């Protein structure tokens, strides 16, 4: 799939974001340019505080850039939109709704109710393998299961772009590995443009067709690395020489930025 020339889905153009803080202005992002192609899986790594979450929030429409423009399908993003779904690190499930209620939340807002909503919800609940937990409340689920619900919820609203902000960051290593494979599987069956933030270099390479390396504050794009390893990828991919070569390279680049932060 990689290497094809495809339509630009999200175009980030000279985005700058400045926050006012008590100690004056903080430049979170400065001159960020990036093209995300249709159905592409782009991962973003960088030291904490490099503005990667800010960038995701801007694409989601939850924050506005100080200057610069982000376009989705050629249209300037001015707010949230259902064509852009988000999966948050903290799951952000509605605790008063069951698994099904959570997955249907977006559907109901779109006016899809009753049987149709049930069908769609069940499909995605099954996709994330939670069919036995349809009527459970979030409090009854483990962290990994909660994040699966969040993914199903995002998918059910049928966005064409899926934005993920360190979705597996709070999970244990084993669950994380499992969810990574599931996500790749889902991405394979339901093509979507994915923008995935992580601080885990291996995760970025395992998932992404492109790994965007961001520099320390003010956040800029340092380099975009093409990962030419073919899909399907799985945990064995991590052992291949090809993977290790990319990992060494990306890790070296990211490490320089970590050092920059420490200074």
């Amino acid at each position, binding site marked *: 799939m990689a290497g094809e020339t495809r339509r630009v889905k999200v175009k980030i153009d000279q985005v700058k974001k400045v926050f006012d803080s008590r100690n004056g202005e903080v430049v979170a992002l400065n001159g960020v340019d990036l093209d995300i192609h249709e159905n592409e899986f782009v991962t973003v790594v960088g030291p904490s505080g490099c503005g990667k979450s800010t960038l995701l929030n801007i694409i*989601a*429409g*939850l924050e506005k850039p100080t200057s610069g423009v982000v376009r989705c399908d050629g249209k300037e993003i001015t707010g*949230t*939109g*259902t064509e*852009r*779904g*988000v999966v*948050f690190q*903290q799951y*952000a*499930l*509605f*605790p*008063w*709704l069951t698994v099904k209620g959570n997955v249907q*939340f*977006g559907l109901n*807002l*779109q006016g899809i109710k009753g049987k149709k909503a049930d069908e769609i919800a069940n499909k995605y609940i099954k996709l994330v393998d939670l069919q036995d937990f349809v009527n459970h*409340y*979030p*409090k009854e689920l483990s962290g990994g299961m909660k994040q699966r619900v969040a993914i199903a*919820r995002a998918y059910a*609203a049928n966005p064409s772009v899926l934005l993920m902000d360190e979705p597996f960051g709070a999970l244990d290593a084993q669950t994380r590995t499992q969810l990574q494979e599931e996500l790749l599987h889902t991405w394979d069956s339901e093509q979507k443009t994915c923008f995935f933030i992580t601080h885990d270099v291996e995760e970025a390479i395992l998932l992404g067709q492109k790994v965007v390396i961001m520099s320390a504050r003010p956040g800029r794009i340092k380099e975009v690395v093409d990962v030419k390893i073919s899909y399907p990828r799985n945990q064995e991919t991590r052992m291949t020489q090809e993977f290790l070569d990319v990992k060494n390279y990306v890790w070296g680049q990211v490490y320089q930025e970590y050092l920059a932060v420490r200074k």
Partner: protein
Amino acid sequence: MVERIPNGGWLALSLLAALLFWTILSLIPSTSRSFPNIFLVTESIGTMMQRGVFWKDITSSLISVTSGFSIGFILSLPVAIVMAWYKPVRFIIEPWIQFIRNIPPLAYVPLVVISAGVGRTPQIIVITIATFLIMSITIYQGIKNIDPTLIKAAKVLGARDRDIFMKVVAPASLPFIITAIRLGTAVGLTSLIAAESTGAQAGLGMRIRALSNTFESSPMLLYIIIIGIIGLIFERLVKLLERRLTGWQEKRDV
């Protein structure tokens, strides 16, 4: 061993220990006049019934507390929402509430009486004020502390302001509303004595003050216990409500 006794068993044990403690107090000469033994106190139910005030006092107090609480609750909801939603309103109103909240109701009772006269009205007003203050601040803080990522999650799924209010803010603040109800009923009861010092004709608080003039400690203790029992019943009712409405909440082990 501790694990093997059922909860009901512990409750019975606790009650038994309290009775024992009470009996000891009734035997010690220096405390016996404040704590007549259980038989004398039980007997005083009959005395108060004979005087024709027992049920009147209980119903009068219940009417005052429930009406004052209800009005306080109905007022506190919109005030809390407006405070959480509009910053200018919050900045102006919150200091007032925080200021008045620390003043014991007994202090402003005379002022209420000057304007509202004596009778039922001032009682309800005093309880309304006290319960409104605690409930509005509790609900407001609950709404303010709603996890902002829940609102973000709703937004990215297509929720507009009205949806966010109805489908996120309202259910998310339900646990705080129930906490407010619990605190409100408790405050309603604790301000009863103050409320009934407004020249009330009947009532548990009014009667306790009246009995103190004649040093009748048995019915006084009886009435004090009745206030406690009413408090327990309220607490139970709130628990029931809580289990029905917010069973989805993560349990925090205290």
